[in-house]
């Protein structure tokens, strides 16, 4: 399923990329425009995706990923969800709160005790805020407070 799905997605993506590339001014051989090189890249991408699709449907051996057990999968999913949540929340709640919540939640789900998770969350968000916002002058969002 995955072995055949991925090449098809690639082919589709390369096709869309080519369509978009054709909308840019192509220019001529002697005066290549902004679309000249993207069209070449798109043709290369389509060729590669075609070969990948053909070899996948002819049953070439493709490494299927090893199945994870449920707890491992949950730990990875939680980490990814936390990363996305951090990015979404950062502009609204500010860096210190987002970092604290991020570290605490991820650590807790990776198997740390609540006390360890909360303490590490507090120390790391404060420490990194001081390092980046105060010492390195990075304008980290600080939220509504």
């Amino acid at each position, binding site marked *: 399923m995955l072995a055949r799905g*991925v090449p098809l997605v*690639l082919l589709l993506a*390369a096709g869309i*990329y080519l369509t*978009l*590339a054709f909308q*840019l*001014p192509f220019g*001529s*051989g*002697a*005066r*290549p*425009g*902004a*679309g*000249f*090189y*993207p069209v070449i*890249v*798109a043709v*290369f*991408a389509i060729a*590669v*995706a075609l*070969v*990948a699709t053909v070899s996948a449907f002819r049953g070439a051996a493709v*490494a299927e*990923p*090893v199945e*994870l057990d449920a*707890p*491992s999968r949950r*730990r*990875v999913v939680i*980490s*990814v969800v936390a*990363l*996305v949540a*951090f*990015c979404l929340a*950062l502009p609204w709640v500010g*860096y210190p709160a987002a*970092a604290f919540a*991020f*570290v605490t939640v*991820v*650590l807790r789900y*990776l*198997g*740390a005790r609540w006390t360890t998770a909360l303490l*590490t969350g507090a120390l*790391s*968000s404060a420490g*990194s805020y001081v390092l*980046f916002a105060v010492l*390195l002058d*990075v*304008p*980290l969002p600080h939220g509504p407070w």
Partner: protein
Amino acid sequence: MGPLDGLAYGFSIALLPGNLFACFVGVLVGTIVGVLPGIGPVGAMALLLPSTFAMHPATALIMLAGIYYGAMYGGSTTSILVNVPGEAGSVVTLLDGYQMTKKGRAGAALTIAAVGSFFAGTVGVVGIMLAAGWLAEVAIQFGPPEYFAITLGGILLLSRLSGGSILNAFVMVALGLALGTVGMDSISALRRFTFGSVQLAQGIELVPVIMGVYGVAEVLLLAEEGIAKTQIASVKLRELLPTRQEWRRSTMPIARGSVVGFLTGLVPGPAAVLSTFISYTLEKKVSKTPEKFGTGMIEGVAGPEAANNGATAGAMVPLLSLGIPFSPATAILLGALVVHGLQPGPLMISQQPEVFWGFVASMYIGNLMLLILNLPLVGVFVTVLRLPQHVLATLVLLLCLVGAFSLSNSFLDLWVLVVFGVFGYALRKLRVDPSPMVVALVLGPMMEKTLRQALFLTRGSVVELVARPLSATILLLAAAALFGPPLVRLLRGGRST
């Protein structure tokens, strides 16, 4: 400036207190990330890149490169003591290194690895001095057609050498090249593939991509494990001394490994990793007892450990003399220089001698620091392995997030980080190497610019473009490397049937 004057001048730069400190921080961080499995030098270099923005370019280069070659020292420690490679360049070391630990010769293996690395680092510095200077002189005459051939040839070679299937590598290259076209066109200033986004007009930044693919993705792999306990063999200081026989057996492998490593480093590809495999195979071939490899042969540690250090030095040559990075690690170094408005290339050695020579001299000093750090203090670094992995993993994620944001205070970089982190994790699950994508993302824009300039020069004649002696040679070599092996196989197969 001749090589010796240059080196003397370089030492006067590298020995400035600020640069010495940067070198120390670099090699220390490098050793630590080398020791820690899961977090490699490339991710660490990307993480620390923002902190170098305020430094002098030479200082930035000294620190970031220190992480790169420092990791080669640290990686061997974990391979030898824990039977887990600290980073990819130390995979081969564990074959014989861990067997030596089982026989109680861990200390000797560590010492030989460190001394071999130091020797190779020294050879590498001499190599850079000679090769980079020579190449830069030749490269002054290069025009856009030659640069186009070098970037194209480099990408093709890299796809061949990156391990795994060449088809997968080509998919990664296509993706990297396409990503490289996002943003403002450098010649006509037209916005391409930005879908109206102002932020995307800047293009997709390399550093969050690298942080994602090499930082976040590796942490996600660690997260699978949850809380894991590591078994570490302990080493006593007096066990560190190899016997006279062990020294004798290691001398030639170290010498061969240094040369093999440096030469591999010059070639586009995952040089540090590749060089260790080449060196191991070579040592096995010249050995009188090849069947004993894998049972704790000191040659199997000495050669590859020298080779991966030699390779890190060799990889600097195309970067410093042509301004072309052929690996993710050197791409970050290029990024660090470009931020300061420096364009590495054939003129850098004469126009910014303090950067070039200061850097070369610092590599020598850094290798000396590493020898001291890694021998008597090996126990200290091993305790890093006892740190709870899940805490470390979470903190690295947080550092990636805040680091990506601080690059240009942009939320887009954060999203690029997360998307490429998940993507990089998926690639690792599918056993696909992401480095062709990263290198293509860096080389793509260079390739486009040089191609368009070259076509302009030759009035659109592709024949004229590829028929210039140098371009033709480079492209032929790349084509031979790409199509040679399958062609030979085809011919052999045809003959046998």
